């Protein structure tokens, strides 16, 4: 080796060829190690399948949760959505008095919009929108109160509360409800769901790392003689690591492929209930699948974790061969 390097260092042109040769050899080596690692993995289908299913599940759970999260976020209030107050008037108030109240509200400059829904209009809408409309016919008089929907200019929580209080100045007002409350509540639920998903993702990512490390450790123990002999005849730690890193890479990649399949199956399973839930609130709902970016990230994450787990396992083994 040293003789070769010396002779090639003499001529500049020779040196360049050597470099290209070295790169070619390096690439050929990597290609060889990658296919060899794949061949060895496919040689023991049962053991590999067990590990792969473990990796698949560990990667699928966070992937599924995050996809679900993206979907549920469609429900959270849009940025331009202003909170609305529904002012319920007491039943049996004269229509003229109601008009006066709504006009007075229209004149206030701290309100963006005022919409009056009379008890008749309310009853019509109720009949149109729900199957329970026939219930109204059971009543002698329309039991629905008139409602005035107002959108305040200032949508801070404090201002909304003051507004709510000030509306009770009208003795005709029965109750004032903040329409946005459920959205705020949903936001909080989604927020904690996001946290839980994140924690689970980190824990399961760690699981992937450890599962691969453990698998590679077994692989190493079956090739200890090869490692030791290689080191004794001049292999670098990089050389010794390489086949195991590729094995870890393949495990991670195939685990991620399996995880992608699992996530798709799970999404198909939850699609219809999710659609029902969201149409109740939003009307239109488009199920978000993993998408190209999602699949690519999942595969990349799986490969990197596999590679990393293998690196941990081999490094631990290599320190045992260091000269004392």
């Amino acid at each position, binding site marked *: 080796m040293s003789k070769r390097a010396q002779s090639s260092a003499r001529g500049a042109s020779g040196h360049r060829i050597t470099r290209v040769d070295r790169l070619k050899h390096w690439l050929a080596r990597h290609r060889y190690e990658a296919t060899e690692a794949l061949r060895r993995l496919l040689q023991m289908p049962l053991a590999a399948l067990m590990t792969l299913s473990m990796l698949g599940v560990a990667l699928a759970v966070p992937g599924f949760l995050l996809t679900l999260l993206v979907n549920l976020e469609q429900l959270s209030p849009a940025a331009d959505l202003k909170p609305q107050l529904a002012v319920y008037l007491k039943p049996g108030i004269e229509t003229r008095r109601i008009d006066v109240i709504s006009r007075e509200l229209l004149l206030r400059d701290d309100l963006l919009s005022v919409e009056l829904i009379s008890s008749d209009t309310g009853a019509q809408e109720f009949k149109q929108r729900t199957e329970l409309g026939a219930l109204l016919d059971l009543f002698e008089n329309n039991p629905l109160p008139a409602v005035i929907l107002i959108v305040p200019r200032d949508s801070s929580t404090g201002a909304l509360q003051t507004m709510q209080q000030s509306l009770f100045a009208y003795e005709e007002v029965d109750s004032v409800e903040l329409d946005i409350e459920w959205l705020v509540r949903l936001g909080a639920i989604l927020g904690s769901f996001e946290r839980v998903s994140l924690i689970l993702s980190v824990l399961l990512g760690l699981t992937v790392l450890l599962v691969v490390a453990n698998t590679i450790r077994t692989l190493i123990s079956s090739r200890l003689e*090869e490692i030791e002999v290689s080191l004794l005849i001049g292999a670098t730690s990089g050389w010794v690591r390489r086949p195991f890193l590729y094995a870890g890479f393949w495990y991670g990649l195939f685990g991620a492929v399996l995880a992608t399949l699992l996530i798709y199956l799970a999404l198909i399973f939850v699609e219809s209930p999710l659609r029902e839930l969201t149409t109740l609130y939003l009307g239109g709902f488009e199920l978000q699948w993993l998408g190209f970016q999602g699949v690519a990230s999942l595969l990349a994450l799986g490969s990197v974790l596999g590679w990393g787990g293998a690196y941990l396992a081999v490094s631990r083994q290599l320190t045992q061969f260091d000269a004392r």
Partner: protein
Amino acid sequence: MAAIRFTSVSKRYDNGHDALRAVDFELESGEMVFLTGHSGAGKSTLLKLLTLVERPSRGEVWVGEQNLASLRKHQISHYRRSLGVVYQNHRLLADRSVFQNIALPLQIAGYSEDDIGRRVRAALDRVGLLSAENANPMALSGGEQQRIGIARAIVHKPRLLIADEPTGNLDPRLSLDIMQLFEQFNRIGTTVLIATHDVALIKRMKHRVLILDKGRMRNV
């Protein structure tokens, strides 16, 4: 120039055992030398210091112009490529052919595929086993396995050939064959150091003998 030089080298293991005590000796370049002594005398330890499997507790080990103490961890692999080492149990890998076993040092050193093919066959020819190229090493006899082990040690033409009990598992006739093989490599300029306790064999061959006794070098 000395191929190997030990200056007051001592090795004490973690368990307190003194394997080598102030060992001094030199090997001239191109020399063939036997290293002998009872088992436990320190032969293996001395070879482990040369292959940097172990580091000395005190003293200096020089190989050629290289003080081994100055080699950092990442330089060890390159240093080892300049050696050829033969083991008593030959340490061939059972999961690959004879060819692949001998090719391993060349692959590690980064030789091209064509180059590897030529050199492996040349090495096989030198040990007289050209026809065994595609065999599994475990299918060969003990003597043949050791020849393959030697082919692997010399395939990259090392300046220094080290052997640890290379005839330990062989009968006297095969042992002599193996030793004569080492002499052949010595004749073309390779420095050879062979650790063995086969005193009868050493006496038949006219080479310098180093004797270790409880970690001390007796006659140099």
